[in-house]
């Protein structure tokens, strides 16, 4: 029989699986309980960016964390690839943000200056006026007023990341249980007792809650203050192109297989992941403004997916004050941060001497602001 898991991760999205991967690397016996295909799963609908530009412009710890994660990505991707045999198609050759409105362009310039002030020589960026941009890339349309560039930005194939993590976790000896929706967690002397929707019961000495938008009921039972909310993003997928686009941007990226992903809208609409014609039209319009040659490229698919947002939008790494054997991990940008979750977060969860300082991401920040 299998040895009982020391740590149970609740949630098998990118966050839960990367966390499990890191704990397995650290020598722990880990079990991942994952819910149903019908759950809202950001990890199956995201854009795949490993992105630094603009992250944490107003919150230095988040700028640092994102910068660390981006630096950890090459080794992390290599490890996941080696354990899983799946190529994540990591490409960190630098990325552009394109602007069609002058005021948004200058506001973002200010953000990047703030980010550079925080990160010093760990960050660099360029601000490129439209005409200079078109000298380098004649295919860029006249409606683009300028772009910013950061050489540290990149992307992965997001579905292969999810699958690669799944296979790697199993290959390292972790157990992933699908269709294992946890309905109730009860703290007991030896840890936690869990009741699953399918009627079974499990014991867990330690738990890490990584259930994305499904976290709320369990967070409350474990004494956490964090309540995440959904934010919808919509995106378009085009037919595959032979031509390689000469750039990567946060709104237009070409995956290794040739298709373009166009995206990234934001809408506060609650738990509703339907796509809308208005948003899709806006995305297509933006893409054609940036790159007029896309006008006759066909869109094959479009979808909406829900981001997992904490109250202030920044990650939460926290231990339960009432039940210290329970930790909670949730974030937006779980792709970018996967390299951190899959490596150094384990030191924090294990409370080793090498633990990174994650005090700024503790959830007491919500409790304080709520009572203030």
């Amino acid at each position: 029989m299998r040895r009982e898991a020391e740590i149970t991760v609740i949630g098998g999205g990118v966050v839960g699986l990367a966390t499990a991967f890191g704990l397995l690397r650290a020598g722990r016996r880990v079990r991942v309980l994952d819910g149903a295909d019908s759950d809202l799963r950001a990890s199956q609908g995201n854009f795949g960016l490993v992105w630094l530009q603009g992250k944490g412009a107003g919150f230095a710890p988040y700028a640092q964390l994102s910068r660390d994660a981006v630096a950890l990505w090459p080794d992390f991707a290599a490890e996941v690839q080696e354990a899983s045999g799946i190529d994540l198609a990591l490409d960190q050759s630098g990325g552009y943000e394109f602007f069609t409105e002058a005021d948004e362009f200058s506001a973002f310039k200010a953000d990047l200056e703030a980010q550079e002030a925080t990160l010093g020589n760990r960050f660099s960026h360029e601000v490129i006026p439209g005409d200079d941009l078109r000298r380098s890339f004649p295919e860029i349309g006249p409606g683009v007023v300028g772009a910013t560039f950061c050489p540290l930005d990149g992307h992965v194939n997001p579905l292969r990341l999810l699958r690669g993590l799944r296979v790697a976790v199993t290959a390292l000896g972790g157990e992933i249980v699908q269709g294992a929706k946890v309905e109730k967690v009860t703290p007991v002397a030896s840890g936690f007792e869990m009741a699953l929707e399918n009627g079974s019961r499990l014991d867990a000495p330690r738990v890490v809650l990584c259930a994305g938008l499904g976290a709320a009921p369990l967070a409350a039972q474990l004494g956490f203050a964090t309540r995440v909310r959904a934010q919808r993003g919509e995106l378009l997928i085009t037919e595959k192109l032979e031509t390689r686009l000469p750039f990567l941007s946060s709104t237009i990226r070409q995956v290794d297989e040739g298709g373009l992903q166009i995206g990234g809208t934001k809408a506060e609409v609650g738990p509703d992941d339907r796509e809308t014609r208005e948003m899709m039209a806006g995305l297509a319009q933006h893409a054609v403004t940036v790159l007029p040659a896309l006008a006759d490229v066909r869109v094959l698919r479009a979808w909406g997916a829900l981001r997992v947002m904490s109250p202030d939008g920044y990650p939460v790494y926290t231990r339960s004050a009432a039940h210290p054997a329970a930790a909670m991990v949730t974030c937006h940008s779980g792709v970018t941060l996967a390299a951190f979750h899959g490596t150094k977060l384990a030191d924090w969860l294990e409370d080793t001497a090498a633990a990174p300082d994650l005090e700024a991401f503790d959830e007491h920040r919500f409790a304080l602001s709520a009572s203030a």
Partner: protein
Amino acid sequence: MSIASRFLPPPKADGTVCFTLDGEPVMARDGDTLAVAILAHTGAATRTTASGSPRAPYCMMGVCFECLVEVDGRPNVQACLIPVREGMAVRRQDGLRGLRHDG
């Protein structure tokens, strides 16, 4: 999101039309889909994938994307979703389309 039916009306009984496949004239029943006309003419491959493997129309209902051809200079047309028309210039499609195609 609701999707309108992609099925086309049945072909007319007697009419014929002529189109070209890589420049070679082909006769077809008026109202057949282009994919049907191509299959009736040749079961051979009409496109290749990015890796070069050969494909021919398969699902006949707009799902599999195996029937892609170039029609009147327009790449990646699903041959099963359009009726064949007199004088249509159809080309087999090799690999993926480029960003700008020749009109």
